[in-house]
């Protein structure tokens, strides 16, 4: 007949923590994969407008960004909306060079699919955007995306 041996000690068994590092590592890998680091520091304030008919930008690597908005330091740069390319303010004539550089950074097969995403502050006037669009047309960067936040349709 089987008999259970009575344990003498009344101590509570401690929870084994040896698998804790593994759990943390799994979380770590998840965040490492999901991370996209912000590569450019913004010098302009941007609140993008809202829209319902938005589409996702499919391939992040095929998107080049142009930022337009009032400068973050109005005491130095004024309050007029400025264009930011990469890490500095730019003028309209710099656009075509920017487009060419962006194009050369991608391999040949991907070049027709480059999308230019315009991140524009909603209080900006259309004048600067119209000029920018004309420059983009001249540079043959025809695929553009007006960056907007998605809101639910009220209807």
């Amino acid at each position, binding site marked *: 007949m089987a008999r259970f041996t009575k344990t003498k000690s009344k101590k509570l068994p401690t929870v084994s923590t040896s698998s804790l590092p593994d759990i943390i590592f799994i979380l770590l890998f998840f*965040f490492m994969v999901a991370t996209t680091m912000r590569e450019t520091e913004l010098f302009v304030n941007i609140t993008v407008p809202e829209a319902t008919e938005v589409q996702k930008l499919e391939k992040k690597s095929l998107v080049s960004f142009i930022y337009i908005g009032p400068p973050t330091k109005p005491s130095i740069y004024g309050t007029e909306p400025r264009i930011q390319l990469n890490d500095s303010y730019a003028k309209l004539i710099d656009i075509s060079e920017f487009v060419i550089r962006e194009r050369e950074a991608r391999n040949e097969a991907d070049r027709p699919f480059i999308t230019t995403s315009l991140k524009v502050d909603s209080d900006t006037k259309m004048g600067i955007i119209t000029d920018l669009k004309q420059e983009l047309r001249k540079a043959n960067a025809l695929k553009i995306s*007006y960056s907007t936040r998605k809101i639910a349709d009220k209807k």
Partner: protein
Amino acid sequence: MKRIVPEVNASSMADIAFLLLIFFLVTTTMDVDTGILRRLPPPIDPNVPLPPPIKERNVFTVLVNAQNQLLVEGKSGNIYTLREKTKEFLKNPNNDPNLSDKATKDIDLLGEIFVSKGVISLQNDRGTSYETYIKIQNELAAAVRELRNELSIEKFGKKFLDLNEEKAKAVRKAIPVSISEAEPKNVGGNN
């Protein structure tokens, strides 16, 4: 005597992993970039002759001035009725001679179908605010999306987004997005 190999103390491993984890947690931005996709018209080539002008009835003009007011087809309009008006213009259910003309086209999977010849012409001033411009673009896109949805449900019994690639292509062909943005004008005065 047997030598005992000392074990590496792994209890600090969790702390190291935690530090890394917190670093990545803080630097993570997981927002997906979204936006309204548009194609700009190619630059005008002076050697190529201009295309023939489009008939007046096939153009749906939307003008926006520097005060963000709308002029839709010659009458003052507003943003809330724009979607319905655009849909009516493109669909033209009663064959109104003032609304867009239709042409019969033979499209795979859909068969013979009326395709609107209508073109939406959007013209804005330099003083128009970007927010208004996006709102209009959004309404026009919504009108096209709703028309496509209606056609998809009628023909395939599914929403446009749930269609497979071939069917979606057919529907896109039947209801094309034709928004033309005129060369910029400066009538509002101030920039």
